[in-house]
C-alpha cells in the first residue's frame, strides 16, 4: 500500500517539470514559434538555480536567477526566430547545445567539482510542505501525501494549467496570440503587431522553463549535475504534441508521462510480481506513444498552422 502512495506521489513530482515545460512550449508554439529548446532552457535554469542558491543560500534567489538565465536563452531564440527569420529548429538545437556546454564549463570554473554544484542546505531548496496533523488520518492521510506534500513550485505548475486554458480561450491577449500562430497575416492586417505578440509568447516560455529548471535542481534534487534534465524538455514536447497543443490534455499527458517515469524509477533492478518488464521499455514508452499518435494511428495531432514559419510582412 505504501508503495502505491509513494508511486503516485512520485508521479506528481516527476510530472511537475514536464507540466511547466509543456505549458511553456504551449505558449510559444501557439504563437507560431517552434520550441525545440525547452530542454536547453530548463537545463541552464537548473544550473543557474543551483549555483545562485549555493552562493546566496536562498532558493528564491536561485529561482530568480533561473528565470533570468532561461529568459536570456529564450530571447536569443526569439531574436533568431522573429527578427532574423532564422530556422527555429536550428536555433532550438543551438540553444540545447549551448546550455549543455555552458552549464558544465561555468560550473567547473566556479565550483571546481567537474561541473557539479555544491549540495544545497535546506534553506537553499524548495522543500515540500508538510502536514503532520493530517498525515496520520486514515483516508485523508494518503491523499495528503500524494497531492499536497509538494513544494510551492509544484502548486505553481498545477495552477498554470487552468490559467493557461482560460487565458488562451477567454482573454483578448490569448485569442490574439493564438491567431498569430494560425494566421499572422490576418493579425497584421487587423493592426496588431505580430512580432510583439510573438516576443511575449517567447518570454512566457522562457519564464516557465526557468521555473521548471529551478524545480529540477532545487526541489527534486539538491544540486546540479550535468545533463540533469535528461531529456525532460523533449518529453514535454512529446506531451505537447500528444495533447494536441491544448492545456488540459497537456496536463493529462504530463501526468501519464510522469507516471511512466515514476514506474521506471521504481522498477529499476526490481522484479514486480514475478515477471519483469525491462525498465528501458517503460522509459521509451512516452516517445513511442508520441510517434504513434503523430502518425495518426490513434487520433490526429494538428499543430498550429503557422508554427515554425517566420512572418514576412507583405510589401
Amino acid at each position: 500500500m505504501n508503495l502505491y502512495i509513494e508511486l503516485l506521489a512520485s508521479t506528481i513530482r516527476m510530472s511537475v517539470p514536464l507540466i511547466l515545460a509543456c505549458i511553456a512550449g504551449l505558449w510559444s508554439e501557439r504563437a507560431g514559434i517552434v520550441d525545440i529548446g525547452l530542454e536547453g532552457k530548463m537545463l541552464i535554469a537548473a544550473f543557474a538555480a543551483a549555483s545562485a542558491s549555493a552562493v546566496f543560500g536562498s532558493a528564491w534567489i536561485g529561482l530568480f536567477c533561473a528565470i533570468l538565465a532561461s529568459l536570456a536563452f529564450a530571447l536569443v531564440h526569439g531574436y533568431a526566430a522573429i527578427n532574423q527569420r532564422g530556422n527555429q529548429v536550428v536555433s532550438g538545437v543551438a540553444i540545447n547545445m549551448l546550455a549543455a556546454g555552458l552549464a558544465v564549463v561555468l560550473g567547473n570554473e566556479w565550483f571546481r567539482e567537474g561541473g557539479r554544484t555544491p549540495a544545497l542546505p535546506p534553506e537553499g531548496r524548495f522543500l515540500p510542505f508538510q502536514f503532520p496533523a493530517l498525515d496520520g488520518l486514515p483516508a485523508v492521510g494518503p491523499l495528503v501525501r500524494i497531492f499536497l506534500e509538494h513544494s510551492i513550485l509544484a502548486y505553481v505548475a498545477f495552477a498554470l494549467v487552468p490559467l493557461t486554458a482560460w487565458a488562451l480561450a477567454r482573454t483578448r491577449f490569448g485569442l490574439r496570440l493564438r491567431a498569430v500562430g494560425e494566421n499572422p497575416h490576418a493579425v497584421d492586417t487587423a493592426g496588431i503587431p505580430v512580432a510583439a505578440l510573438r516576443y511575449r509568447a517567447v518570454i512566457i516560455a522562457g519564464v516557465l522553463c526557468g521555473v521548471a529548471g529551478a524545480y529540477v535542481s532545487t526541489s527534486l534534487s539538491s544540486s546540479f549535475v550535468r545533463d540533469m534534465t535528461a531529456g525532460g524538455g523533449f518529453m514535454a514536447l512529446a506531451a505537447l504534441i500528444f495533447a494536441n497543443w491544448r492545456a488540459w490534455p497537456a496536463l493529462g499527458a504530463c501526468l501519464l508521462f510522469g507516471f511512466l517515469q515514476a514506474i521506471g524509477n521504481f522498477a529499476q533492478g526490481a522484479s514486480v510480481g514475478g515477471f519483469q518488464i525491462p525498465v528501458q521499455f517503460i522509459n521509451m514508452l512516452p516517445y513511442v506513444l508520441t510517434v504513434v499518435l503523430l502518425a495518426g494511428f490513434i487520433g490526429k495531432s494538428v499543430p498550429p498552422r503557422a508554427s515554425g514559419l517566420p512572418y514576412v510582412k507583405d510589401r
Partner: protein
Amino acid sequence: MRMRGELPHWVDVGLIPLINLAVALIVSGLVVLIIGENPFEAMWIMIEGSLGSLKGWGYMLYYATNFVFTGLAVAVAFHAGLFNIGGEGQAYMAGVGAATVGLGLEWLPWPILLPLAIFASMAMGAFWAWIPGVLQARRGSHIVITTIMFNFIAASLVGYLINYWFRPVGKMAVESREITGAYILSAREVAREFFGVRIASSPLNFSVFLALIAAWAVWYLLWRTRLGYEIRALGANPAAAVYAGIRPDRIIIIAMTISGALAGLMAVNEILGVQHRLLLGYVGGAGFVGIAVALMGRSHPVGIMLAAMLFGLLYQGGSELSFARPGINRDMVVVIQGLVILFMGALEYAFRPALSALLYPLGGEANR
C-alpha cells in the same frame, strides 16, 4: 532575384560563412575570457594539441571521420528539405548492426565478414531513418519530431539490447564481448604489421578513406545523378518539383534512407575500427556535431570535410586543453558547437544587411 538585395556569389558562399564562423569563435573566446583564461593561449594549445604532432593529427582525423559521416547524413536530408536530427539514434542503431554481424557471423573469413558488417551498419542506420521517412511521406508526421523521438527510443532500445543480449553472462561492464573477426586495423597496427614501422598511437584507421569515398559518392549522387537532381529539386521548391513530375513521398523516403545509412557508417569507424565492442552510448553526441558540420560546410561534401576537420581539431585540441588548463572543461567544445550552429544556422543572415550596405554604400544596382 533574391529578396534582400543580391550579393555576389562569393560573398554568400565564402564571406558570410567566414564572418559567421568568426563571430561564433569570438563569442567562444569571450566565454573563455569570462572563466578567466586567455582565449588566444587556449586557441594555441588546441591547435598545438591537434596539429603539433603525428598523434594529434591521427586523433583529429579520427574524430573528423565520424563527423564527415554524420555531417553528410544531415546534408543529404537538408538537400531534400528535411531536417534529420536523428543521426545520433541512427548511428547508435548502426552499432547494433555492426555488432550483430561481427559477433554472430564471426566464423566467416574476414574478407566476407567485414563488408557484411559494414553493410549491416549502414542497413541499421538506414532502417532507423527509413521509419521517420515513411511516417513523414505517408502519414505527415513532422520529421524533426519523429527523429528526436527516435533518438530516445534508440537510446532505450540499444541500452536494453546491450544489457540483455550482448553483455556476456557475469560481466559487469555494460558492453558486448570483443568483436574479433570484423576488425579494422588501426593505422598504427597496419604500419607495424605490414611495414615494420612504429608510428604514434592513435585510433585512426581505414575508415578515414571510407569517409573520403562517402563524400565523393554524396557529391556524385547529388550533382551528377537523376535521383540527386530530384532530391535537390524537392528541397529547393517542393511545389515546382511536384509540377515537374517528382514524387515527394518517394524522394523523402529515399533521402532519409540514404541519410541514415551515412550516419550508420559512423559505427564502422567507432565500433569496428576503434572500440571493437558495442558500448553503451558510444555515439557520444557525434550525431549532433553532424548538424553543426553540415551547416558550416554549406551541405557540400568539400565544405563538410573541411568543417569535420575543424571540429576534429576542436575535439582533439579540446581534450589537450582540458589537461593543460583544468579551468577549461572539455565541454567548452560543446559551447563552440552550439555557437557555430546558432550563428551559421539560425542567425545565418544576421550580418547580410550590414555587409550589403558596406559593399554597396549607395544602394547601387546590386541592391535593386
